């Protein structure tokens, strides 16, 4: 039953978003990685030996997870051949604590590397990062949570109603929105947002953030990140 479910999901995803190609010779590890990928929503094809990837294979492959030490065609050769024919992201797996291998892999065109041993969560995070097409939205209008921020007009609205923000509060909100989802250091905010001639200190920053939170209310969440600063939560989180 479980196998049928996985297979069905696999076929569905394959039609929608392509597959991850895993090239790993270790049976236990390969089986595990395929299961973790499937669980995370990434259907995978698994090759147990190194071989060249045909041009027809590229159509469905959205990411390659490549072990370097393989029987058959070595990992570096596969990587080299891949890069000649395609720009599909490649995540290299290596059990060797060797910078030469890492540097060579990156020079040959690998996008990332994961050193064994690794936790499945780490691998899935890396796969997500490679597959995610995150584009910093620098357009005039930005939507974060329930806020709509118009940079050009320097206006913020919540459900169509304008928010009355001071200059500093608006600059603060824009700085956080530019890196929505990421913690922004307090020191950076003090140095780049507050007016240095008007006692730009972390204490002053805290006061401004407090006031901004009150004005923004439930429309968006400005979190305090311990040891760093503040983060504006993105809508999806």
């Amino acid at each position, binding site marked *: 039953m479980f196998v049928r479910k996985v297979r069905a999901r696999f076929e569905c995803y394959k039609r929608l978003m392509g597959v991850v190609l895993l090239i790993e010779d270790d049976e236990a590890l390969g089986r595990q990685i395929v299961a973790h990928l499937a669980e995370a929503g990434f259907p995978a094809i698994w090759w147990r030996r190194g071989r060249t990837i045909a041009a027809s294979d590229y159509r469905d492959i959205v990411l390659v997870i490549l072990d370097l030490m393989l029987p058959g065609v070595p990992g570096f050769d596969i990587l080299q051949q891949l890069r000649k024919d395609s720009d599909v992201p490649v995540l290299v797996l290596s059990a*060797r604590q060797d910078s030469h291998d890492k540097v060579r892999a990156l020079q040959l065109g690998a996008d990332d590397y994961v050193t*064994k041993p690794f*936790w499945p*969560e780490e691998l899935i995070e890396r796969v997500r990062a490679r597959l995610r097409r995150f584009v910093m939205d620098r357009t005039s209008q930005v939507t974060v949570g329930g806020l709509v921020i118009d940079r050009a007009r320097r206006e913020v609205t919540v459900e169509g109603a304008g928010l009355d923000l001071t200059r500093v509060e608006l600059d603060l909100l824009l700085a956080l929105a530019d890196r929505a989802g990421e913690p922004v250091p307090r020191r950076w905010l003090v140095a780049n947002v507050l007016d240095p001639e008007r006692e730009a200190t972390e204490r002053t920053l805290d006061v401004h953030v407090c006031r901004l939170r009150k004005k923004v209310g439930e429309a968006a969440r400005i979190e305090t990140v311990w040891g760093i600063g503040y983060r504006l939560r993105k809508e999806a989180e």
Partner: protein
Amino acid sequence: MTLRRRLVLTTLVAGVPALVALWVVGTSIREGRDDDLFSALVLAHFSPAALDACESSPPSAPIDIPLPGLKRGVFEAFGDASGIPVYTYRRDGRSSQPDAPALPADVIAAVQRGSVPAGTAIDARIAGNRHLVLALPRQEGPCALVLVATPRMGPPGPPPADLLLPLALALVAGLAGIWPVVRRIRRMTLAVRRWDQGAPLDLPREAGRDELGELSRALADSAGTIRRQHADLIAREEALREFIENTTHDIAIPLTVLQGNLSALAREPGTDEVGQAMNEAQYIGALLANLALSAKFQAAAQVETSLDLRDVVLRVVQRNRAMALRLGVQIERSVPEDRVPVRGDPTFTERALSNLVDNALRHNASGGHVAVVLEIEDDGFVLRVADDGPGLTEQECLRVLQRGERGDAARSRGSAGSGLGLSIVARVAQSQGWGFVLKPGETGGLVAELRGPLEATVS
């Protein structure tokens, strides 16, 4: 001082005094010989009949003693003169010749003392010139002494220039003899210098039977021994590195599978033991990596390349996020928007940061926080790992670093992050020219800080 200069100096220092001494001795011998010739000439003139005539009729003018017809040696100095003028004196120094120079008092005293036997001569300096005073056989009367003026006028002159010839010959001969020796020594020196610069050790094997030839053969044999030992060392090092790589590789894969299985089990309820097992697995993985890195330090196997520290921070935090979740510690990171390019070894750098984050997580309690912050300051970067765990005092921070830098053999997972992990951090920082400090946090906990230059500012 080079050998040649030493040879020239030695030749001059020894040769010049020797030549001067030879000249002095030769001059003295020549003078003695000349004196004998004068004495013989005068004595031959003052026969018994001549002495009788002198006593009966003391001369009132210098007596002219004929010179030999063929003038040779000292007589050459008289040129065309046919005779030597001599003056006669009594033993008390009085002369019947009004123009006779006065004899020096020391000469008269010597004669009267009996220090000048008949037939012998004594030197006398009269008006700066060297004279001979000869005692005639008749010790009484007006012809007891005869004064002869020798050609040696004035003080002795400088040594003749042709004395320099043997000195010059000695120098040239010495240099010619030492030149091949110096050349052979230089050949050996060059071979050693080339080896020092990385060329294979290849000393010339001299065929000569002298001491230098023996030395060169001994050195060449030693070079062969050194080459073999060096090759052995390299082979052993390679073997060790291969062993470590293979072992690391062989352990890494089953450990990854183990971690994967534990991760799946951890999702089931009531799995505290599984959580602990996951922590131990993480520790084993970190220890494996640290041991491998320690071996690479021994082999000086670091690679220097350009890397973006932001990637290192993101990777390390991702790697440790699962463990943080299990421990109930919140881990956050902040990196600049712009690249943070530095020169370093990616594996070493990542391991160093991973050790710091691992320490911060392990020495914290559930509900605690760890923050990894990368910032650009002036022309460099600052990478901080801060936690709000129990922390350390300033003295404890120093002690921990000292233990860590000494490579304390106790790979303790105990208090305050001592042991192999911190020693790796300290060594990585030192080898990449970065600063590394541990200090108490402003509001408690511990802050580990790495500082270094950005790639563009490294000269």
